[in-house]
């Protein structure tokens, strides 16, 4: 979950990281009021959870108060990277004599936390990293023994700083590190970290990504996910992972890999998936019922293929949820269930008794072929409930 800039800056301030004076506004009127407290020259910054905002025109520098209302109005009409601008951060306009990059992130390949630092920060940091990598300094951070202040100081000294400014940077680095560990961030980045003409050092931007898995023990001022797609929100509530796609065949898998493979095989047969839905390891009768209901809320869905393994999941209970859905739903779409593993026979029996098509083959393509066949036959014949059995490969023990 990415925080918006202003949320990140509030978090920064809480951990003693210096940020500019500023206020969030939700309409041009509020923006004008906020600016009145900040002085003549201010910056308006659209609050959207995507990068490249500056290049998209989402940042406005205001040198005359009379320009402000119109510019704010224009910003609130914008849509950046698919996100409508609903909030603007109004900040004092500060000019930097030097822009620095400082960031903590996780290198997923190695599992290391890395502290990145460059005395040449700002919008072109990626170009600097590519063309002059010697200007980007890297410190591996052991999560079991984070570097103390003095190691950070020696690290930052490589950027060519000394004395008071170095001390200021060291304190900021230590606080960023403290924040990163205390709030279990995935990313904590300051770019630019600006040195002002009066030698103050301030974080002019804040990029913070938090770990959804740690939210049970971490508080943040706003749960950004609440603004996601409604079906995805409902999926989270049910306890499954759902990603909406553009095809017509609903997909439910009891694991992420299996669900993706099912999608891949649909595509191989010339069909597109309507969604990705993964149950995880918590299948119950209710969960399966709710998952199927969720998938079928998408009006594009012409049929659903369900691919399950009984390992940690009690597929015999999942079967009951599927049967209940079919029974309680008026003209449900065709459904094919492939289910193997622990208690597979019990699962099959429940499904067959409930009139659901069962694939006992180990090949996912057989389940895909079966649902395609059912969808097509439904199209031809009109609305019939599926009740056929596909058993091309019943070697499974």
């Amino acid at each position: 979950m990415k925080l918006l800039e202003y949320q990140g800056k509030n978090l920064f301030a809480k951990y003693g990281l210096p940020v500019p004076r500023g206020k969030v506004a939700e309409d041009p009127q509020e923006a004008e009021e906020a600016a009145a407290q900040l002085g003549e020259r201010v910056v308006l910054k659209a609050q959207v959870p995507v990068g490249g905002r500056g290049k998209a025109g989402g940042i406005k520098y205001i040198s005359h108060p009379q320009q402000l209302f119109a510019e704010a109005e224009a910003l609130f009409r914008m849509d950046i990277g698919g996100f409508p601008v609903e909030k603007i951060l109004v900040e004092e306009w500060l000019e930097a004599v030097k822009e620095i990059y400082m960031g903590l992130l996780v290198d997923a390949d190695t599992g290391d936390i890395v502290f990145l630092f460059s005395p040449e920060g700002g919008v072109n940091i990626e170009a600097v990293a590519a063309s002059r990598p010697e200007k980007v300094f890297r410190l591996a951070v052991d999560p079991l023994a984070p570097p103390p202040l003095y190691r950070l100081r020696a690290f930052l000294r490589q950027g060519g700083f000394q004395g008071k400014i170095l001390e200021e940077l060291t304190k900021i680095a230590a606080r960023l590190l403290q924040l990163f560990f205390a709030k279990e961030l995935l990313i904590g980045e300051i770019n630019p970290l600006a040195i002002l003409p009066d030698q103050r050092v301030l974080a002019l931007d804040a990029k913070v990504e938090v770990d959804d898995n740690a939210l049970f023990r971490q508080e943040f001022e706003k749960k950004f996910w609440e603004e996601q797609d409604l079906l995805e929100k409902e999926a989270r509530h049910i306890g499954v992972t759902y990603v909406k796609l553009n095809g017509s065949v609903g997909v439910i898998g009891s694991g992420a890999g299996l669900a993706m493979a099912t999608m891949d095989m649909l595509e191989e047969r010339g069909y597109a998936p309507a969604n990705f839905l993964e149950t995880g390891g918590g299948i119950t009768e209710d969960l399966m019922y709710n998952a199927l209901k969720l998938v079928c809320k998408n009006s594009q869905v012409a049929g659903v293929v369900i691919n399950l393994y009984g390992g940690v999941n009690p597929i015999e209970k999942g079967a009951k949820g599927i049967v209940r859905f079919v029974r309680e739903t008026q003209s449900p779409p065709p459904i094919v269930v492939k289910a193997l593993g622990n208690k597979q026979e019990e699962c099959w029996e429940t499904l067959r008794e409930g009139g659901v098509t069962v694939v006992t083959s180990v090949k996912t393509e057989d389940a895909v072929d079966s649902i395609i066949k059912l969808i097509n036959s439904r199209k031809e014949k009109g609305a019939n409930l599926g009740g056929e059995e596909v058993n091309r490969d019943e070697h499974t023990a």
Partner: protein
Amino acid sequence: MSILLNHETRAVVQGITGRIGSVQTAWMLEYGTKLVAGVTPGRGGERVQGLPVYDDVYAAVEKHGANATVLFVPAPFIRDAVLEAIDAGIKLVVAIPEHVPLHDVLRMKSAAEKNNVWLLGPNTPGIISPGIGKLGIMPGNMFMRGQVGIISRSGTLSYEMAGLLKEVGLGQSTMVGVGGDPVVGSRMVKILQEFEADPETEAVIIVGEIGGNAEEEAAAFIREMKKPVVAYIAGRTAPAGRRMGHAGAIISKGQGTVESKIKALEKAGAMVAFKPSDAARLTRECL
């Protein structure tokens, strides 16, 4: 032979008193796994599925010579449970749960590396050496003893792959689930090295998926391997920028695509299959 999990393995079940822990212990015992004890703090002195329960892992090590553990501890508590197991001298740690906070994973991984411990997961189905035992949640009926090693980032797809191999008459030496998280305890390449060195294993199947660069990293070693490697990578149709169930399954900034992985693997001499059943067939053909 087999890798990591063998006839010397004496395992403890951490979180044995939980619902899943208890049920899975029964399955593992039924499969013939050598489980020596369970551990749940605060529940020492009880018995679950006939096994003694201790308050700490040290006790299981002292009294039963435990050298492996499989964890069904809830995600919020798994970090300390894993660190305890490592501190107690356990050398194979199988962390089943998903939704483990990343910072906890980083700490677990760091401790495992410092102590030369095999950490599988989190978010793994576990490990099975058919005919010997299983530490994990995989359905035993899908697997069969044989000469193919499987490394999988996905639980369900590893079961499917085992079932497909059985259809073509092949069994497995060991199936290792590395876990579906962005950061996992053991690198795929390390497990490949174990399979290359194992006399029983004659071929290796990699079941990969989008996200990360584990497959690309593995490719560098495949180039040097004597044994044939077959791979299937799931997620050809997954949209960029979205997490596909597994926290680690995401194409981010153009990184971790199926194409990049296939390219690296093919260049290294691996056979890449378009679907799991093709991977089983290709493996049959090269043995």
